[in-house]
Every structure is written in structure tokens, then in C-alpha cells.
């Protein structure tokens, strides 16, 4: 993580209903508590209707723009394969990428009018080499008993990039944002995700 006035840019992408907004809220809670200025922007007019969802997340000592400059993404955290490759041009050459290994077919593909992109991982690796990480979020969450926790699995995996943030800080944020009955599941999801990367 860069200090000394630099801003870190995290771009989250996924499909409405995948819980990207909760994931970005966890990040916000963590980095705000860690003493940074945080800005977060999302467009969520019709996301409930299965459209694509993106969140621009920025933290640093002083942050001006709520949205990331095109090409300036340090971390791409994506919850779906097509919605990751869609933003490949946004990532800095040295940027890091975490992708949930899940396909959700958009209408044009459902109708047989378009192809779902093949080899998303390969396309990323061509440019970003070892900085590309796929996580089987659905599978891990399913094994824990609830597919809904896939988003927190991804957050767990993503937490590896910030060694200066302690596990407790992530767990506190998860607990602060979720109902008590969901705490056990999501704490487990966080640790399983952390191990997965």
C-alpha cells in the first residue's frame, strides 16, 4: 500500500445481486477506521434488475475525485468473469486482479446472439502475469453452506494485499455491517477466502 499522499484505487465490478456493495462497504469501514480518507462511488439505479454494478473505491491521505481515472486502477476486484474483462483497460500495468471464477450469462448470450468471452484468465495473464488471481468464491461459499457469502470470500482473498491491516480489523468491519446471525458464516467465509489466495 502506498502512503505519503498517494491514493490507492480499487475498482469493484459484478452483477446486481452479487453483493458487491456489501464488499465495498466492508472495504470502506476498514480503511476509514485505519485513518484514511475514503471515497466510494457507485451507480445503482437499476442494479437490482440484473445489470452490471461497479464501485469506484479510493483511499489515501487526501482524495478529491470520487471516481477513479481511467487507466489508474491499482486493484480490480471482480465478482464475475465477464464483468472483470470488461474493465481490463482500466488497470495500471502493475495493477493486481482478483476475480471470482463465476459466469453469469447476460441476455444476449442467453439468446444465443453473442458469445460469452472465453479464457478470461488467459487474457488477463497476458498483460498482468502473476498478478492475476482467480478465486472459486461460489464453491467455497457453498461448502460453508451459503452461496450468498461468496462476496465475503472474495474480500478475504483480497485482504492478502494489505498485510498492514490486521484480520481483526476486517472481522470487525464484517460484524459491523452484517446482522449477528450472519457473523459466524461470514467470518468463516473471510478466512476461507484469505486461504484461497
Amino acid at each position: 500500500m502506498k502512503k505519503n499522499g498517494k491514493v490507492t484505487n480499487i475498482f469493484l465490478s459484478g452483477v446486481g445481486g452479487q453483493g458487491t456493495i456489501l464488499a465495498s462497504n466492508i472495504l470502506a469501514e476498514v480503511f476509514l477506521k485505519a485513518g484514511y480518507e475514503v471515497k466510494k462511488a457507485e451507480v445503482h439505479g437499476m442494479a437490482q434488475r440484473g445489470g452490471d454494478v461497479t464501485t469506484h473505491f479510493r483511499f489515501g491521505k487526501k482524495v478529491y475525485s470520487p471516481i477513479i481515472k481511467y487507466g489508474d486502477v491499482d486493484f480490480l476486484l471482480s465478482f464475475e468473469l465477464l464483468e472483470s474483462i470488461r474493465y481490463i483497460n482500466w488497470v495500471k500495468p502493475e495493477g493486481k486482479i482478483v476475480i471470482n471464477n463465476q459466469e453469469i450469462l447476460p441476455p444476449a448470450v442467453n439468446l444465443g446472439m453473442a458469445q460469452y468471452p472465453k479464457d478470461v484468465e488467459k487474457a488477463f495473464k497476458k498483460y498482468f502475469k502473476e498478478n492475476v488471481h482467480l478465486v472459486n468464491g461460489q464453491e467455497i461459499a457453498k461448502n460453508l453452506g451459503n452461496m450468498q457469502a461468496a462476496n465475503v470470500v472474495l474480500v478475504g482473498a483480497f485482504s492478502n494485499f494489505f498485510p498492514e491491516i490486521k484480520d481483526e480489523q476486517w472481522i470487525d468491519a464484517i460484524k459491523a455491517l452484517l446482522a449477528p446471525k450472519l457473523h459466524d458464516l461470514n467470518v468463516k467465509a473471510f478466512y476461507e477466502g484469505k486461504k484461497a489466495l
Partner: protein
Amino acid sequence: MKKELMQGNAAVARGAWEAGVKIAAAYPGTPSSEILQDIAGTYPEIYAEWTPNEKVAVEVAAGAALTGARSMAIMKHVGLNVAADPFMTLSYTGIKGGFTIVVADDPNVHSSQNEQDSRNWARFAKVPMLEPADAQECKDFVKIAFDISEKFDTPVMLRTETRVAHSDSPVVLGERKESAMSMGLDPKEAPKYVMVPLNVRVRRKVVDERMEKLEAYADKFKYNVMEINDTKIGVISSGVSYQYTKEVFPEWSYLKLGMVWPLPKKMIAAFFKKVKKVVIVEELDPFLETEIKAMGYKIFHGKDVIPIRYELSPEIVESALKGKAYKAPKIRLKPGDLPRRPPNLCAGCSHRPLFYALKKLGAFVFGDIGCYTLAVAPPLQALHACICMGASVGMAHGAMKALGNEGLGKVVAVIGDSTFLHGGVTPLMNVVYNKGNSTTIVLDNRITGMTGHQEHAGTGFTIRQEPTNMVDYEELGKALGVKSIRKIDPYDIKACMEIIKEEMAKNEPSLLICKDSPCMLLRRAKPLERFKNSLYVIDTDKCRGCRMCLEINCPAISWHAEEGQTKDGQKRKGTVYINPDQCVGCEVCAQVCKFDAIVPGTK
């Protein structure tokens, strides 16, 4: 001092609470909807209500202000068009208790029918306008807006836009301070509040005098800030445009305007003296540019390079101002090559079979604003006009008048329940009054769907979930004089088609109301209970791969190209698959299938 990360809209709500607001009224609209929801959910000291439309919201808030209460009306940009009538004249009467109109613009039309720039309303109505650039300013500016409102006896506009309204940034929380204004109505003030010509002429002059005072105030306004750094270039900007520009050109000098109307003329003059070249960066219209040029200044750059439409962003500002020196990031993949992911009607949504029926009937559909506008997308493509809230009913009537008998059987107006109550009732009255013959279908899904489930006069609940009266659309239609009123079940495609066909052909006004078809996401209405089965599956022995079921554009159904044949030997190029995680058992695809290849399954 407690600091919290807040969405711009939540910060506006907080600002209202801290400012001692007593009354808040709104009609939901992206990106403003969360403000009143937040007020109702978080701040019991503020009375909050969803009104049928924005005009009513402004009138409710204005009436409250007249008693001395601080009040607020909240809307999206196009909502102010609806509320323009009371708004324009409230500028003349002034207010008593502080009165703020929050208007949220939507540059880039993320979820709107146009991209209008609300700053023009401030100039048009001769009222001050504040424009926050982040959540902290949202909160601070709401409080200042009320102070200005009471000090100058004027409505004040607070303009946000998508990237401020829907962005989160840290906010330092304060405490609520009740207004010191005494409460009560004073009949002796009638000349100020009764806008008959004699009084209007008096007030007209007051408006101009007030603007002069506000101009002087703008020069001292502490949120009009000059930041002098490198004096070679100075930027005049406001709101999120300032943030984008500061992000990419931190070394330049800035005049950041917190108040965008009226403009601080002396401050602008001083800025032009301090810097060599002035650049104006603003989203949408050349509002500041036109005014500043009219003051006689020459600018280095403005709308000659900064786009006049859609939203700005750091890279748009950077590339516009750097010109050829801007280095675009490397293109690794053309995004246009990827399939888009537009929003779609939910699996099981009652709008899907209704629009499928209309498509089969070949009707010209005057649509309206709501989730059902999505029926315009392929493959449904069953909606042919959509202008503004409530327009469908009046437009269908006008089209029928123009077409005469030729139009019978071919035209229909389709409007959601919330939209009908917003702006569809008056035009339906007009259809009857002027002896029209158009057909209006009210898609009653028991909630304001598109903006995220807000209550309205037809849901039976207030914003704070207290049970209340529920408009009866049938009785309302009768009262307006509609004779042919029928309930339709959108999930029965065949029956629906028959009824709609009959009604469109009738030479009299018809009102059709969708029954038992609540929004799929409205849990309290138990939308899934009406379905006999919880899942349908493809019988691959029978599926001929005719793709008819794909025409309804259900997110649960997908095409699988794989050559094969039915049990009785019919060759096919592929078959379809119903995703059991998404299917809710609405049976619409089964009704569409001609080969009985879609059958109940078990989850």
C-alpha cells in the same frame, strides 16, 4: 467529533436533521430517492412523506414553511419540471421558515429521461443555488441553505448530481439545532402570500432587490473559495467537476464555487487579476461560462474543449485540457467486443407477460416511466414512446384523436401504479371529458418499483410503514367517468390478449387494471404464492429448439446450441435451459411454448 462515511444523500438527510427541519416531502427519483428514505428511517424529529408527485411535495413544504417550520422538498432534476409552477412563484412570495429544494441532476442519464442542467432553474426563478462537491459539503450546505433562506426570505436550491448523491465520503457529525423562528400563521401577511397582480408587482421588485443582496452575500460566502497555487492557470469550477479537475491538475489555482447562483462578481474579478489564464470546468451547460463571458472576461478554455453533454471524469477533464499532450492508457481489449449487460425485468415479473401480449397484438404502446420501460429492449421491443411521468395516457388520447377510427384496436397507454397516481389521473379525466376512446392499462405491482420500493398512495402504507388509505383504481376510474373498467391477470397471456383487443377496439375510454401482480421483490405481498409451481423445466424429448420462449427475455432462460432431436425424431439446432436458481415458476414460458416442452419441475 464523530466522523462517519456517508453517501451524499444520507449527508443531505443528516444536514436536514441538524438544521432543525420539521417537514420533508418528496417523490422518489434516481439519484435523489435515498434522502427521504434516510430521513424517515433515521430521524424521527422530522415529519416525512412521499407525495404523489413533486409539485405536491413543494406545496406541502411551502405550506409548512409558511407556519415558520423549516421544510424541505426533494426531487430528481425532471421532478422540478413538475414542481415548477409553485416553485417559480414561491420565489416571489418568499418563505417564512427556511425552505430548501433539493434537486439531483443525472449527467450521463444513468437513470433518467433527459440530461437537463438544474442550474438554469436558479437563474430562471431568481433564487440562490448551492452546489456541494462531497458528502461533508452536502451536510454543511443544507444547513447553510436554511440560514440563507431565512436571512433573505427566499427558497434556496441545493443541487446535487449522481456522483455527489451516490458517492460516499467522510462526514463530521453535528447535533440538531431547532430553528429559533416562532411558529404560527398570520392572516395579516396575506399581501405577501396572495399572488394576485397587485401584490405580484410589489413582490416582483422585492425579488430583484433580494438578488442584489444575494450577489453581495456571494462575494463573502465562505464556501466560495480561492486557492492560489501556480498562477499561470486558474480554474473556475464547482461540485464534482472541481474534484475531477483538482485530481488531475493539483498544481493549478482554483476558484471553487459553493454557491453557483448568484455568482460572486467581485471574487471573480479578483481571480482574473490573480491568475494569467482562466479555465472554466463545468458539467453539462456552459452556465458559468455564459455568465462570466457576459461580465466581459475572456477565458482560456471552457466549452471549446470541455464536453457539453454526458458526465465529466478525471480523464475527460485531463484529455480535454491537455489536448495532444494527453497520453491515453493502453487498450488491451476493445470493450465494444463484449456482450453488454443491460438491466432486465426480474424472472417472474408481471410486466413480461403483459408486454408479450401487447407485442402479439401488434399494438402501438405509449409507455411511461418505470421498470416496465425496460420492455423497449430486444427481444420484447414492445414499447414505442416514453417521455415523462404520466405522458402515456395523454399521448395515447391525442394519437387516437388524430387517427380517428383508424386508430381503434391499435393503440394503448401503459402506466405503472405509482406513475399513474403521479401524473396519469388528470389525463385519464381528460380522455373521458373530451369523449376520447383510448385504452389505459395500469400495471399495479403495489409499489414504486424502479427506484427501490417506495410507498405511494396506492400501497396502503406511509413512508414510515403506518397503515393508511389505499387508492382503489377501479373506483377512481369510475369517479372520472370511465365506463369500461376491467381487471386483467397479466399472467394469463391468452385471456389478457382477448380483453385488451376488445377494449382497444371499443369506441369509448377503457381502463384496465392488472390484478394480483405484485413486484417480485416485494416480500410483504408474497409474490410467489400465486404461482402453482415453483419451477419449470425443459422436456428435451419435446423441445424443438424453436426459440419462442427466448422472445420473452426471461433471465432464467438461456439458449444452448447443440444439435439433436426430439423423441419423435424432429431435428433441432439446440435447446433451451431454465436456470432453477432463477426460475420462480411464473409459467409464462410454458404458455408461450407451442410444443408443451416446458413442464413443471421440482426444486
